[in-house]
């Protein structure tokens, strides 16, 4: 009965075509390619405007039904599978790129704009600019990514993507709209502040405090030339030193690290990939020379790689899903852990132990962010989605990895429900109580993505 009332109202708000409660439609929204167990969804709606979102929120408050905002649904950690059922707001119809400011280098866009759309739009209309995007598939949204502190090929040089937000337009859980950042008092969406920074409330809070409808993010000049220089380390303890030196000379655009036990030739090595950019081929050659020297000095062997391999690493963004798929079972999840540099060797060694313990092939990667101020380490688990047992094993490995992350002084990123629980168990009590107070004040009926970051 209540369902009929809700669906009728949702249809009035967004139009009949854009609401569903058919179980066949809902099915794919109850799961993601990660290892989370499916959770029920009652409705999916696709609003077109912020006003429609306001109406949906009013309805949710009225009926005490929860709301989960969804972009591409590609975090892998089940973040858009509602914990307490209710309405999933699929943002894809809010897909307009509203403004490109070439001189202050930013883009204002609606929250449903995908990474693919932004990439192709810039390539076509502003080829000199490039956006901070992750190596995620093109259907991930820009908003979904920056709101979880995502990272990509520009993060080593410019920081995580959360730090590239200049401003947000948010519909609060009460239905009010607020603008945050310079757009709160200016026509220019060019800067976060200087104002009390409330943008932070909406990042990595997984939609529990409101729905972002519009945002501005920074853009960057596209480099003319770019290359990647591969290195090979035998001992993980040598990793911090070589990274410190590379970042000290300030030439790297992006720095990736990785290890995997398969194929066999890769086993026992740690691969370092330093990306450099420049204005000319000579410029690139010069920097390559510098890197080679640093590699050599720090027990890191310069490595010439086959063209095919080189090419796949030059893709921008990298086709990361290929690695995710290596078990060919359609399932993949990882703990992305923000970790201090000094703990990286331990992270690799002990992460690999977890994999081996569960009979999995150790496959760990990482990316440096803002110089060496943060290293995000990806402990990845590829599994067969068709096997419940395989998925359960992946969940266990993820659990152990979250614990390891905390032990190493790190923070699990975009943590799945279990990961959030582990963080909350270890979180400063003052932080927790502040979080609770904010949540209770902004969202008195607890309608926004309840169950996430839940402080009881």
């Amino acid at each position, binding site marked *: 009965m209540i369902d009929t009332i809700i669906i009728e109202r949702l249809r009035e708000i967004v139009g009949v075509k854009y609401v569903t409660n058919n179980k066949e439609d809902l099915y*794919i929204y109850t799961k993601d390619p990660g290892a989370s167990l499916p959770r029920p969804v009652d409705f999916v709606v*696709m609003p077109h405007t912020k006003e429609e979102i306001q109406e949906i929120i009013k309805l949710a408050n009225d009926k005490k039904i929860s709301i989960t905002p969804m972009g591409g649904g590609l975090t892998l950690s089940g973040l858009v599978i509602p914990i307490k059922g209710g309405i999933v707001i699929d943002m894809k119809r809010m897909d307009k790129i509203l403004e490109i400011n070439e001189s202050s280098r930013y883009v204002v866009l609606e929250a449903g704009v*995908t990474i693919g759309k932004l990439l192709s739009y810039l390539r076509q209309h502003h080829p000199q600019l490039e956006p901070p995007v992750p190596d995620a598939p093109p259907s991930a949204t820009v908003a979904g990514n920056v709101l979880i502190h995502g990272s990509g090929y520009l993060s080593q040089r410019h920081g995580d993507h959360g730090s590239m937000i200049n401003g947000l337009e948010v519909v609060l859980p009460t239905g009010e709209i607020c603008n945050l950042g310079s757009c709160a008092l200016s026509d220019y969406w060019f800067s976060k502040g200087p104002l009390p920074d409330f943008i932070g409330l909406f990042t990595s809070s997984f939609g529990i405090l409101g729905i972002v409808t519009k945002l501005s993010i920074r853009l960057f000049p596209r480099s003319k030339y770019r290359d990647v220089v591969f290195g090979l380390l035998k001992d993980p303890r040598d990793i911090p030193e070589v990274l410190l030196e590379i970042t000290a000379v300030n030439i790297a655009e992006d720095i990736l690290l990785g290890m995997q036990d398969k194929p066999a030739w890769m086993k026992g090595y740690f691969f370092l990939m330093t990306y450099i950019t420049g204005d000319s081929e000579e410029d690139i050659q010069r920097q390559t020379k510098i890197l080679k020297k640093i590699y050599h000095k720090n027990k890191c062997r310069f490595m010439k790689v086959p063209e095919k391999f080189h090419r796949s690493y030059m893709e921008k963004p990298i086709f990361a899903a290929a690695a995710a798929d290596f078990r060919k079972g359609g399932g993949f999840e990882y703990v992305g852990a923000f970790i201090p540099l000094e703990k990286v060797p331990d992270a690799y060694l002990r992460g690999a132990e977890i994999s081996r313990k569960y009979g999995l092939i150790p496959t760990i990667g990482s990316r440096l962010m803002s110089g060496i101020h943060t290293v995000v380490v990806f402990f990845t688990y590829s599994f067969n989605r068709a096997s419940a047992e395989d998925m359960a094993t992946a969940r266990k490995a993820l659990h152990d990895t979250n614990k390891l992350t905390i032990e190493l002084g790190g923070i699990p990123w975009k943590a799945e429900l279990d990961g959030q629980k582990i963080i909350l168990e270890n979180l400063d009590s003052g932080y927790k109580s502040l979080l609770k107070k904010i949540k209770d004040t902004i969202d008195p009926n607890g309608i926004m993505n309840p169950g996430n970051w839940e402080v009881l």
Partner: protein
Amino acid sequence: MSEVSLSDWKAIIHRCFRCGYCKYTKDFSEINCPSYKKYSFESYSTGGRLWLIYSLITDELEWSSYGAKIIYSCTTCGNCIQNCRFDKFNHFLVDFIEMGRREAALRGFCPDNQKNLLNRTINSRFYNPYGAMHSDNTVLKENHDLPDEAEWVYFIGCTSNYRQQHLRDSTLIFLKKTGFNFTLIDEHCCMSPLIRTGQVDSVKEFLTYNIKKIKLVGASKVITSCAGCYRTLKNDCYKQGVEHDLEIYHTSELIARMLKDNRLIFTSEYKKTLTYHDPCHLGRHANCYEPPREILRQIPGVTFIEMKRTRENSWCCGAGGGVKIGDPEWALEISKERLQEAEQTGASLVVSTCPFCKTNLNDANVKFDMKFNILDLIELIDKLEYAILEKKEVKFIFEKSNCLTCQNIDCLTRCQYIKFQNIEDARVEMNKLINEDRDSIVLSECIGCFGCDEYCPHGSHPFDLINALQEKFNSLQCNPDVVQNTINMFKPHDEIRIKQIDPSKPVLNQCVFAKVNSKEMSGPMFDNFQDLGGRDFFCNLIYQHLARPSIIKERVPIIIENFKKMGVKKDTEVICWHDECYGLYTSYCKRNDIEQPFRPIHILEHVYNYLQAHESEISKLNIKAAYQRNCSNRYIPETDKWVDKVCELIGIERVPRKYDRENALCCAASFPLKGKKKLVRPTQNKNVEDMVQYGAKVCIFNCPACKDALERKISAKGIKSYFLSDLARKALGEELKY
């Protein structure tokens, strides 16, 4: 191979990662899955459909008519196949959906409209999905005076026979005019609509029936002007377990080939701006993108403008996969979007190569009052005047009859390496050759540039004679160690490791350059090929240089067999990276009466087509370049036009140097092998000076041996060396790391 057996598909469908590459065009600029575009819910994306089918076959969800609606709301356009990035999985995507439909149909969930397709088709009064009274085609046969037995069968297809008769008649007229030895059969539906909608019970029976009928008239080749019939006969038969050895051609393939072989020319003008719509069945599902375009480009007066989404990234017309009957309004909406895109080109005419596309595009054109003229390519050709030329006589062996009456003895008088006082002098020498006189100076002095073959205006192939005599009399006295080493080094293995290729997708024949020139065969221009290379695929023409043509004769059949073992079929497109390979599979095979094992494509034709497809990304290079034409190209002078075309597209001025085109001068790389070391320096110097004199900044090669031979020398003169394909890649913005 893309055969999915029922047991296989259920075990792999869950590999879909739900990542969504399949939703877009390759550059992500547009949503290109018609179903996802209309419904927007994730359930209607390719991935959503696969996840749903998986949940249904594993009993996680129950079958329902709404579930079936989702599975049937797909035009089977194949955009997902092209853009999903998981190789060895992506080519199954539409098969998965069709398998899902089979499961639905088995359980009674095939929607009613689609069920009608089945009811009508299996009804013996119709045998077609339209429910039109069956025609056994006798009247047509009589009207067009067609024989009872013929080499070819024109398979009309239900849409052309019952709905687009003008298209059918245009095809008949064309085939008659061009003198094809063809006939018609009493055909039943090709079963495309039923395969696409998962109603497969009678499919095998119908396919077998049609094939039997074709064989009964003694035909070995089938021509069809319907993209759907083409795909079914060509690809679906074996997926459905019906094997046949018929050759299947789409009209556009045949016409393009006739134009290429100079057997057809258009003699009237057609002054219109037009655009071309790729039918999904023909393009994405059968990889036939270029032939229709080649034809359109050759029609005098035509301005051909591509739409934004073309080829692999075409927007579907909306008719396929049972959508036209299942949801006719939606089918028209999809066509409307196509026509809106056509509007942006400024064209007044939209051409396609499928009667079903034509029907749907036209219905939308009328419904939305869009004022286009919509024609099938064959109908357009019917409006033109054209001439059929005698097939140029091809000589399989050296033919002396022409020589006896030959006026100018061009073969020898134009030779750049042997000097004759006058024509009579040359005639004496020619007579010696004909009489197999071992003392002819030609035998010892010929450096093997194959020039005479090109110079002979009668197609007599004098070099075949010279080369055979050089072997017979050991006239060149090549170093026997070198000869033996080469023979051993390039000997094909007794057994080869089989790496099955997909015969419907193009193959790159890398010859023996796979390793040495891997970089030159990399980058997006080469990425989508299946590679075959190494000595088991070596063209062996090198033995002409060593005066051992008998080795070629001996080994070529082995090499051809090797291609077949890998799954290469007669109509598989094989891009020959080296001129010599292309020369083997075209000129050599013809001369020696060897059946062409596949469809050889010249590397530069591929480069040109690739550039055309990416025209908007080209930044002109604006350089002057000398072309160092290699000797093997003399067997295939018809391919020289690709050099010009590529140069033009990427902004290269091919300088009119003295030693280009028919006057090309050998790079001299092979001279020392033939005891002609002394000639190396003067020949190379002539080449270099000529490049400098004509102001070339760059020298273009199409052969690694020529490049190796000259690169150092010309670089000393400030001239950089490139393969033409490299320059094309540069023009497209690729950074070459070598």
